């Protein structure tokens, strides 16, 4: 063999450095396992078993450590290509981690692996869809574990890792972008580590604030049900726009004051965190009012709430403050993809259901913890359509798409259009599978129910409209539907494209 041939060597089989990616997933898993420590004190105070959390923590950290060691000798580096794999796998691993305590301590209702994994995925992706039917049977520590997984998943596991782990200082930006959704990540600082830290700081700060606000209602005697435990549990699922509740009837049991506080924090959670940081922490509130996306976000919330109020009043379902509160609460909850309910809206007439169904596709703002399509994409899509129409008449006209006055890169513009198409495609595919299974097994899911169930999972919202409604459960769905929904929650959280990249031939082979 000539020297050159020796240098060239045999053909490289894979384009992506799987070992390097697994190595990083291992590291992330190793640290993620530490999260299981949190519910242990709660279990101890309520005299509940701590071993499910110990097992979950040890198993995840141990597996992570083993994976890290097994791939330790590899020379590879996590680049853009590997980033997609790391993010996708990390979220699958995280859902599995969350499922372990359910399997061991969740009792009958969470004993099936698919159900436990569904609950775990719904937790980390901040969806809030649940297979739990009997809330009283759940131990307090498992209750809090559900809430806590949503809180961890809200701002993103990798964003957290970038903030604390030195290893991700290089190459973390692209992974952070796939995890912190939205077409363009607003930069808070030159270094992504500082950005990640600022975002988490704001996230923790707002969570503490909400916990105190809710708990003070209990302390002041305004709301007897709002114990400090409930206050923390609900702050944990408001800020990530999660939607899990410790109560079978969601937040219906709490006072009007508590519901209004939750509305305010849901609105904050659905806003762009980078913008909130600039506006609130750096005290430049005018930035908020000048931001096109934020203005549209508020406008949609106000208009949709007003419309729903009028309908509730017109149908005689509610009147006065109750109508305004019920309408605002459901609209904000569904639009920001939180998924709480203050009433069983599944029983409403079709016109009202369609209103809620429509806001399922709005979503939060870019860079928020909310899911779905997101307001900025609607804004850009509107501008793209406007341009297409103008250019039909004058093809030579050059019209840059602008956001807050600055031109948006054409690649980003195309990515927005592609995302919306993929989103609708994934939704249609998911609804199809659910509808077919429902037809075969006779579960009795209506047309709108099948469509809404897929939409609620893909948008990381939570409740659907029929049996999967706010006071119902996903438990009665078939296994194929549950697996489909798990997949939808996963791709919805990562905004489809990082996962779609993995499905292309050229990702794997050169």
């Amino acid at each position: 063999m000539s020297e050159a041939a020796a240098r060239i060597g045999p053909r490289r089989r894979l384009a992506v450095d799987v070992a390097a990616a697994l190595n990083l997933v291992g590291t992330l898993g190793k640290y993620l396992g530490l999260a299981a420590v949190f519910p242990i004190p709660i279990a101890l105070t309520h005299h509940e078993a701590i071993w499910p959390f110990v097992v979950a923590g040890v198993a995840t950290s141990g597996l992570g450590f083993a994976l890290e060691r097994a791939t330790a000798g590899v020379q590879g580096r996590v680049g853009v290509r590997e980033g997609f794999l790391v993010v996708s796998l990390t979220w699958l691993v995280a859902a599995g981690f969350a499922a372990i305590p359910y399997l061991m301590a969740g009792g009958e209702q969470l004993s099936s692996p698919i159900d436990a994994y569904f609950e775990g995925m719904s937790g980390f992706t901040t969806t809030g869809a649940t297979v739990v039917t009997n809330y009283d049977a759940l131990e307090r520590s498992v209750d809090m574990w559900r809430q806590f997984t949503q809180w961890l998943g809200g701002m993103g596991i990798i964003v957290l890792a970038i903030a604390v782990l030195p290893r991700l200082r290089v190459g973390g930006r692209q992974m952070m972008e796939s995890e912190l959704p939205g077409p363009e990540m607003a930069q808070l600082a030159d270094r992504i580590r500082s950005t990640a830290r600022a975002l988490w700081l704001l996230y923790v700060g707002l969570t503490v604030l909400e916990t105190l606000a809710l708990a003070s209602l209990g302390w002041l005697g305004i709301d007897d049900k709002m114990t400090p435990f409930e206050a923390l549990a609900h702050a944990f699922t408001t800020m990530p726009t999660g939607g899990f509740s410790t109560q079978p009837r969601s937040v219906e049991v709490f006072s009007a004051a508590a519901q209004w506080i939750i509305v305010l924090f849901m609105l904050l959670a659905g806003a762009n965190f980078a913008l909130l940081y600039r506006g609130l922490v750096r005290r430049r509130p005018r930035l908020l009012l000048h931001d096109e996306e934020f203005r549209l976000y508020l406008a949609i919330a106000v208009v949709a709430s007003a419309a729903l109020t009028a309908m509730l009043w017109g149908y005689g379902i509610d009147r006065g403050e109750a109508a305004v509160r019920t309408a605002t609460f459901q609209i904000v909850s569904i639009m920001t993809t939180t998924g709480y309910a203050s009433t069983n809206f599944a029983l409403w007439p079709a016109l009202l259901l369609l209103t809620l169904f429509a806001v399922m596709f709005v979503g939060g703002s870019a860079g928020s913890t909310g899911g779905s399509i997101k307001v900025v994409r609607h804004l850009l899509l509107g501008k793209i359509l406007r341009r297409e129409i103008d250019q039909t008449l004058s093809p030579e006209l050059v019209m840059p798409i602008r956001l807050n006055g600055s031109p948006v890169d054409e690649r980003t513009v195309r990515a927005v259009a592609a995302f919306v198409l993929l989103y609708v495609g994934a939704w249609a595919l998911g609804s199809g599978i659910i509808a077919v299974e429902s037809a075969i097994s006779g579960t009795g899911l209506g047309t709108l129910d099948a469509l809404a169930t897929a939409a609620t999972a893909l948008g990381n919202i939570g409740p659907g409209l029929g049996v999967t409604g706010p006071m119902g459960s996903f438990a009665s769905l078939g296994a194929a539907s549950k697996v489909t929904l798990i997949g939808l929650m996963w791709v919805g959280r990562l905004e489809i494209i990082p996962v779609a990249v993995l499905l292309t031939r050229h990702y794997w082979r050169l």
Partner: protein
Amino acid sequence: MRIFVIGAGQVGSTIVEALHEGHEISVLDMEAPRLQALATRFDVAVHEGDGTSRKDLAKAGMGSANLVIACTSRDEVNLVAGMFARREAPGATTVIRTSTIEYVELWREGQLDVDFVVSSELETAYAISRIIGVPAARQTDVFADGQVQVGEFEIDDDASPEVLGVPLRHAPLPRDSKVAAILRREETIFPGGDDVIVDGDRIVVIGSPGAAKTWSLLLWPAGGTVRDVILYGAGRVGSAIARVLLDQGLSVRMIEASRERARVTAEAFPDARVFSATGFDADFLERERIGSAQAGIFAMRDDAKNLYAASLLRAHGIPFAIAIAHEPVSVAAFEQAGIDVSVNPRGVTAEEIVRFAHDPRMQQVAMLEGNRFEVLDVTTRESSRYIGQTFRDMPVHGALIGAIVRDGRAIFPHGDDTLQAGDRVVVFTEAANAPWVVEAL
């Protein structure tokens, strides 16, 4: 005055041409042939050297200059030369030319250590904006912070019959304006009330900006007020023009052949409509109703293209065409071809720079008809023999006072007004008489 000029290109030679009488000029340039051409035409000292070399600048005698003008076509050279001028000739006034508007803004903020920064692009844009404001004028200049406008008009049979052939005292002329001169063939008339304007004349009018607009309407009733322009070319000059016109609230449609530059321009000017097209396609012109604009400005890099586009749009019905003539020789060709106004960016720049070379009492100077006439903005001295005289009694010596600025306000004097010490006067004069006029005031 001892003037040191860096750069013997078009701007440099125009400056030398305007200033060589009465000033001691040295010119430095890298290219010997250019210097030789200059030295054979004018009595100036020439030095071959690099404008960015302090040694070369010192050797050429920059240290003894009162005024340093860095006017090469390269910003960097001018900036460096300006910096060395501060060291080498600390007392001298420094003027640099730039093509980058950012430097002009920096200078206005006081961040550049030179006395004046002149941008060809901005001066061209200002010139065009003045022309657009007074579409009947071939050339206009503003004085006294925009309070006084001087315009040169060409009279043809479009002019209103109320002014054509009517003695000036009977014509309905705006009161705050004055006909400074009538140029009839080779003759220059400083008109009185009995003189008349006829077809084929050129006239110079000094008046308020409002009066200039009224004159424009009298001489070209169809011209109206321009609100909607088509601009060909989005290069540096085109962009500067767009910026100035958009700031004035005009509607601007830009046509740029380069796709990339069209994109950049569209991003920079949200209020303009930018087309990525050559603008020579009949289909496009028809579909976009390009010919329905009130004025066309042609600011592409190639004079021949500007001429062609202007003729094409004329054929499509555009009433008023302004073209950029990068080569001085193109000006005549453009006028021959029926373009209403042509603007030579380097000429405009040179004119702006020449202003700094005059008597310190003089704030501003404009040149008309090539260099045949000048308009001066001079402050009168206590000792001037014209102080206290009424305008009626002032002798006509190939010069005319068109406006005076007293206490910051412009007055357009009539026969009974008197001249006072400390008045700023805007005087129209034959170039040859200019030094004498300055002396007498």
